[in-house]
């Protein structure tokens, strides 16, 4: 059922992405949407890690459905990704990500997508990744909250750390489905661009 799945891709994309592995650190608003975009792009291998279960309040922005409530996010997301591309290879870790296990969980990844909700987590994840794999990119979501202001969302690169977002909005503004998904898709888009280059 996969023949023709990537027929409308940019020429050459599938051939390269099929060989690539991307880590998704956190399968919430950023991670679930970025993973779906990467699966649709033809990525060969994803590593998913998250210890949370799907809650009703997640459905305003995360790639889950009513029937997923109570399930582990990584397991529910795996099912959705397989429903898009049955051939995608998935490594699933239902466990809390910590500074101590980042290198072990994501050691096979060419690129890591930072998809945490909390800024303190983002900070130690960037640190852990950069210390373990200084030559491999990490793509972080930074400033996704609020609504509108699409033109304020951008990509900022410094070395192998790439930030997607407005770089200033914080959680007290609340989260809007479209804006979170835009940033998640920016992260996926940057990952694809890096892999293709």
């Amino acid at each position, binding site marked *: 059922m996969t023949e023709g799945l990537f027929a409308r891709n940019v020429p050459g994309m599938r051939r390269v992405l099929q060989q690539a592995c991307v880590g998704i650190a956190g399968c919430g608003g950023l991670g679930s949407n970025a993973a779906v975009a990467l699966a649709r792009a033809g990525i060969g291998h994803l590593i998913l890690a998250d210890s949370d279960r799907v809650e009703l309040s997640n459905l305003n922005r995360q790639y889950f459905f009513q029937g997923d409530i109570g399930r582990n996010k990584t397991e529910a997301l795996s099912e959705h990704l397989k429903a898009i591309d049955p051939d995608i290879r998935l490594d699933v870790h239902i466990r809390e990500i910590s500074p101590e296990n980042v290198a072990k969980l994501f050691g096979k990844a060419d690129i890591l997508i930072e998809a945490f909700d909390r800024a303190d987590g983002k900070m130690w994840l960037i640190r852990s990744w950069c*210390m373990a794999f200084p030559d491999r990119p990490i793509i972080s979501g*930074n*400033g996704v909250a609020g609504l509108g202001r699409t033109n304020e969302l951008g990509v900022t690169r*410094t070395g192998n*750390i790439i930030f997607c977002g407005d770089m200033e909005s914080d959680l007290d503004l609340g989260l809007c489905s479209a804006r979170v998904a835009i940033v998640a898709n920016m992260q996926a888009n940057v990952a694809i661009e890096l892999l293709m280059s």
Partner: protein
Amino acid sequence: MIVVNERTRLEWRDGMTAQDVLDAMGYRFSLITVTINGEFVPKDDYDEHRIPDGADVRAIHLHHGG
């Protein structure tokens, strides 16, 4: 001269550290990522990490939400 976050120019001096730059900028956020010429600098090294003249310094405040 060094450039901070692609905007602010600071006079360089011999022995200048990452912490000196953060102090000069008045950055006291705890949730921050610092790079010097694209190289990640761990927080524990801010006091020791020397900044070369002409450096591109980024001090990026991290925000909740995802």
